[in-house]
């Protein structure tokens, strides 16, 4: 029966092949993609923790064991990724973006493989498959040149990452002679006390890969480009699911830090973990700061994703029970709300035809369902109770304070407040404010899109007030990595270190106060609806103030004061390093090219010089 683990990988591959054949027929392609996701979901229902499977791959006459092992973490990740994928592909049935279903299915196959495999060969293979399929997927964005550029950038980062992992896994293989993840991890844990630097080196090779995939601080530069210029329907998957692969990988390796007895500690943390907490915090703050002034809405939310992943990394790096719980919980929450946000963005962009904030505005009347989904999405993302983003953020703060990481916590809080700012900016610029006359004929998304949006709304509220449904499996994961799980008092409770939060209570409180608000609203004097243009400044023509209709919408420089505040930040070009590296390589390339001068004589000279060097070497040796 355990062979269904294989089918988890093969079903999407087969689906992908069929979809690839039919890819010219967009609807069929999408339909097959959706149904494959649904079938895979059924296969996941048949999967349970502790299932293992192994087979041998013949590699140069030597058998390489491929093995599968379902852990609590893997089954959790499988469920959340596939359920989200199913919803997304259902949404994509009526979608007009150029996402290729078969590529998504390839990613699904890699997804299932990554989450269930217990050998590094399979892990690496799946990782590569996932990386390349996503790179090709990014290519189909609306802005062709930019998406090509983004895909190239992403590809280079991703190749760099996979080479790093390549190096790491073979180094482990050299040391242990095995590719099995679990036994290699056990080996690393066993020698970490003896050779901490070795272990650190090897693990950091893997971590570079994971950080690149998740887009953590020094390697975040590809994220905004790739997210922004990917096909609109693919971006939700990229942000919601694919960024979690890096987190998954980090979670695999983090238990080693438990054993790091030989390492000096800072605030009770091994210093490596401490550094990672700071990396997470820097990512969170950086994402926030950079998100403020984006005019491209997808870029804005890409930076937002960055920021949230910073939270997750900071939390799981603590490797305390609260920290890991909070990290995984936030990973789930981020998947849900950022998925929902990007899906609504896809809906908006497909209707309005632009992703520029300064060109949109006032769409709330035209697309009410989308508007509400987006509203709840940003409420979740801002961590407003009782929606789903709150609990995890709350736990993250607690886990940080528990370690007395005060500055880090303050910065995270800054990031969170900032998040509210840019989220509102996006909200305002898309849905609120003046409706441009370009969008007079914009309609709500088709029924399928609305169904998905209702579903997502429901999910965000449901998992907000019933966090127990997530916290219980998270608790199992925490237990399986060797930490004490947090107590789960009930489905509605988030249990913290210092206090508890009763989410349904907050829900009730809000609901009742809303009822009172509405009662007050309806019993008081009448109101009448007027058009948006009928307002305080209605008598004036914007042009008189030197304003164009775009700037009248006031999203042009929403946080202008902040620009002055953060000016020093902007002077540090974060991706300058990578661009510099690229430029340096290019210049070196041009210089090296000069070696080949095109003169037969000089080529002969090279050969003679080479010969002489060898002769001298032989002489000396």
């Amino acid at each position, binding site marked *: 029966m355990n062979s269904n683990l294989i089918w988890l990988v093969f079903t999407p591959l087969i689906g992908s092949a069929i979809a690839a054949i039919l890819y010219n027929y967009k609807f069929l392609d999408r339909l097959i993609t959706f149904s494959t996701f649904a079938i895979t979901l059924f296969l996941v229902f048949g999967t349970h923790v502790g299932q293992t499977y192994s087979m041998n791959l013949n590699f140069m006459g030597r058998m390489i064991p491929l093995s599968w092992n379902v852990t609590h973490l893997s089954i959790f990740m499988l469920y959340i990724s596939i359920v989200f994928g199913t919803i997304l592909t259902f949404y994509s049935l009526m979608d007009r973006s150029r996402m290729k279903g078969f590529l998504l299915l390839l990613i699904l196959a890699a997804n299932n493989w990554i989450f269930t495999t217990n050998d590094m060969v399979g892990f690496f293979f799946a990782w590569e498959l996932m990386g390349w399929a996503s790179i090709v997927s990014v290519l189909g964005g609306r802005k062709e040149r930019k998406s090509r550029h983004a895909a190239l950038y992403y590809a280079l980062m991703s190749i760099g990452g996979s080479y790093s992992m390549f190096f790491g896994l073979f180094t482990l293989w050299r040391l242990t002679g095995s590719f099995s993840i679990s036994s290699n991890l056990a080996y690393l844990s066993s020698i970490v006390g003896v050779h901490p630097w070795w272990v650190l080196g090897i693990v950091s090779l893997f971590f570079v890969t994971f950080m690149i995939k998740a887009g953590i601080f020094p390697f975040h530069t590809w994220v905004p480009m790739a997210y922004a210029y990917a096909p609109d329907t693919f971006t939700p998957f990229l942000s919601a699911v694919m960024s979690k692969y890096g987190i998954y990988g980090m979670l695999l390796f983090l238990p080693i830090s438990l054993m790091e007895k030989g390492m000096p500690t800072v605030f009770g943390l091994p210093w490596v973990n401490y550094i990672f907490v700071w990396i997470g915090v820097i990512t969170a703050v950086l994402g926030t700061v950079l998100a403020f002034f984006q005019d491209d809405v997808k870029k804005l939310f890409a930076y937002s994703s960055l920021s949230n992943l910073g939270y997750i990394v900071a939390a799981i790096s603590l490797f305390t029970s609260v920290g890991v719980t909070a990290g995984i919980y936030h990973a789930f929450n981020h998947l849900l709300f950022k998925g929902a946000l990007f899906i609504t963005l896809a809906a908006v962009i497909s209707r309005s035809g632009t992703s520029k904030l300064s060109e949109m505005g006032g769409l709330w009347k035209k697309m009410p369902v989308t508007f509400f989904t987006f509203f709840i999405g940003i409420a979740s993302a801002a961590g407003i109770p009782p929606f789903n983003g709150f609990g995890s953020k709350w736990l993250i703060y607690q886990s940080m304070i528990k370690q007395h990481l005060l500055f880090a916590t303050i910065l995270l809080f800054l990031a969170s407040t900032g998040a509210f700012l840019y989220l509102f900016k996006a909200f305002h610029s898309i849905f609120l404010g003046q409706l441009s006359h370009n969008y007079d004929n914009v309609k709500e998304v088709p029924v399928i899109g609305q169904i998905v949006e209702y579903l997502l709304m429901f999910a965000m509220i449901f998992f907000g007030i019933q966090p127990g449904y997530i916290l219980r499996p998270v608790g199992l994961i925490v237990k399986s990595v060797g930490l004490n799980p947090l107590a789960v008092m009930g489905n509605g409770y988030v249990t913290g270190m210092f206090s508890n939060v009763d989410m349904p209570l907050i829900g009730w409180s809000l609901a009742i106060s809303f009822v009172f608000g509405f009662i007050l609203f309806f019993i008081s004097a009448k109101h009448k609806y007027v058009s948006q243009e009928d307002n305080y400044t209605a008598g004036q023509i914007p042009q008189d103030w030197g304003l164009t209709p775009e700037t009248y919408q006031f999203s042009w420089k929403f946080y202008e004061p902040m620009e002055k505040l953060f000016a020093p930040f902007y002077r540090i070009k974060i991706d300058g390093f990578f661009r510099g590296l690229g430029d340096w390589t290019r210049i070196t390339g041009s210089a090296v090219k*000069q070696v080949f*001068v*095109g*003169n037969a004589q*000089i080529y002969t*000279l090279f050969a*003679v*010089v080479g*010969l*002489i060097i060898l*002769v*001298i070497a032989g*002489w000396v040796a």
Partner: protein
Amino acid sequence: MRNDTPILVKKITALSLITILMVGFFWAFTEMPKGSSVNVNNRVSRLYILKNVKAATKSLNSGNFFAKGMKPLRSDVPYSPITFGKSANLEDGAANVVTSIVVDYRGFDTLGEVTVLFLAATGVAMLFFGKRKKNIIKAQASLIMSVGTRIAYAVILLFGIYIFVHGHLTPGGGFPGGAVIASGVLGLFLGNDHYESNHLGLKLFESLSGMAFVIIGLTGLFSVNSFLANFLPTGVIGDLYSAGFIALIYIAIGMKVGAELSAVVDSMIVDTEEEWS
């Protein structure tokens, strides 16, 4: 080193490089066997000279050829003394040991060698391919020249044929013979302003003689079950009709080389104009 390096720098660099290289060479030669200590008996040539390769093979197959430490015992291979004009049915009948190596023991090299020459000639002809221009007469050949070359041509041709036919007995063979023949053709070109070689004939000679070589080789493969094996009786050493297929091959080579070099001369002398349209 760049294209615009001054010539002096270039020369000094080249000189110093070559000096280092020469020093290296001479240093290596100090370890080489001196001229006075070269011992053919330590080399595989001993077997070729004494024509006891078959005996060596037998000893090899019985495992006695290589001593401990994989040192070959070439001097221990039994041999029968060879007397010129008397010894018959040797494994290789050529009196000229170099020829026996070139054509028989290492005949495959020679096939390759012929091919190289053939390819060079083909390449030359290919690059000069095009519409033939009228011969531009650079200098009128004198009467003596034009008559003399024609007479000499016959002699040279005959001499060339003699050289390759006697390849297995005397110094010489297919290549020198062919070259001699080609020099005759060159003489014709120099002596006659309007001389045109018979292209069809050259081509036929070239192809057929080359094919003959391969076919002889293939005959060996099908009759003696080894490519380029000597399938003819070797006769008495020193006889003209001896040494099996060596003479046949040398005739083929001679004709081929003669035709090829003539063709090279032809293509180089005759001006052509390219046509790619």
